[in-house]
């Protein structure tokens, strides 16, 4: 999956318009990245990438790029 496709998945999850997110987007600046979104991210990682995501790992995500890297 390309980074563009991964970002589209995240935008869809956060109900953002296409093009809203960039790799350097800081997660703390996104109102939409709330506690519910973090739970959705766990489901997305499991469904799309077969990866388990812990609370510790989520806390380490500072930017969209960190999430993209985890998806690999």
């Amino acid at each position, binding site marked *: 999956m390309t980074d563009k496709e991964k970002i589209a998945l995240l935008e869809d999850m956060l*109900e953002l318009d296409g093009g809203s997110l960039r790799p350097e987007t800081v997660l703390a600046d996104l*109102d*939409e990245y*709330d*506690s*519910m979104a*973090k*739970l*959705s991210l*766990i*489901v997305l990682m*499991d469904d799309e990438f077969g990866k*388990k*995501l*812990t*609370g510790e790992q*989520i806390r380490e995500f500072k930017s969209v790029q960190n999430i993209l890297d985890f998806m690999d």
Partner: protein
Amino acid sequence: MITNKFTNISINGIACAVSTKWVSVESLKDGTNDEMLNRFVKNTSVTGHYECGSKQSAADLACVAARHILDAQAIDRNEVGIVVYATQYPDYKAPSTACVLQDRLGLSHDCIAFDVNLGCSGFVYGLNIVASLMHSGNAKYGLLLAGDTPSKGIRSDNSRNLFGDASSATLLAKTENATPITIVSRTDGSGFKAILRPYGYAKHPDRPDTEGVFDEIGVFNFAIDQAPEMINELLLQENLNSDAFDCLVLHQANMMIMKQIAKRTKFKKEKMLVSIDRFANTSAASIPLSLVLNYGDSFDEKVLHSLICGYGVGLSWAAGIIDVHVKSIYPLIETDEYFDDGLYD
């Protein structure tokens, strides 16, 4: 996985009670904007919840629900030999609220009564306990009461929106050749800090019992991993699959968790009962409440072959296979009734 099986116990009645006060999520905004509120409703499916008044407790609701079943079926109070009350919000630190309920329900002294300190798994654990006591004893009927009033322990509006007050009563009867009840149980105390109310009790007596700890992500991961694993093991053990069941009745933690459990156990979405939308997370009452909400007003002459699963604080989780006749599920009761114990505040 600990398995308990009963072939001489049937579930003869399920009733639930809530207060008369329903609180919408909009009324508890706590600084959130409309967009955040919409997202909350979309993700959790919660539109509101019931809250008891200051004088009303979960035991009051459970008492009303139990009395309703006993009266409707004209059960001889002398034949009810067990009252187990599963709750995280007992009326008192001591004694067990179940002891008070034995008297309030007009039951005889020939009665086993005690509380069980479990939350979201409390209904399934409670069924196991009551059925076990009945199986090995001479009581004709047993009552499982399960309910909570999280509104009395939660301070922030956001958390208040996630939880609701409700109680249930379930009447079990000794019945020869009943359809089997199978219950499986697990515990993982290493996760005790995931959901925790540590203060004001023996370990930390000097701090008031204010807001507890809730590790949302840890609990989410626990629920979507362990609950499906247990259900799938149960199905394998019993040589069944999801098609064999009329309904999947999960603890109503949040919609995302419930959908994941249904998906991972291959249950069709339409078989999963939902009450979280109107009642939020009602802890130990959520499984019977889902049956009441979906079937309490039905006149169907049908037996619901149901797979139930509760999971949460402990960490504690349990699943079961039970049969419930639709006619033994009563309509929801709304009540303001409370017990005046004569003590001063």
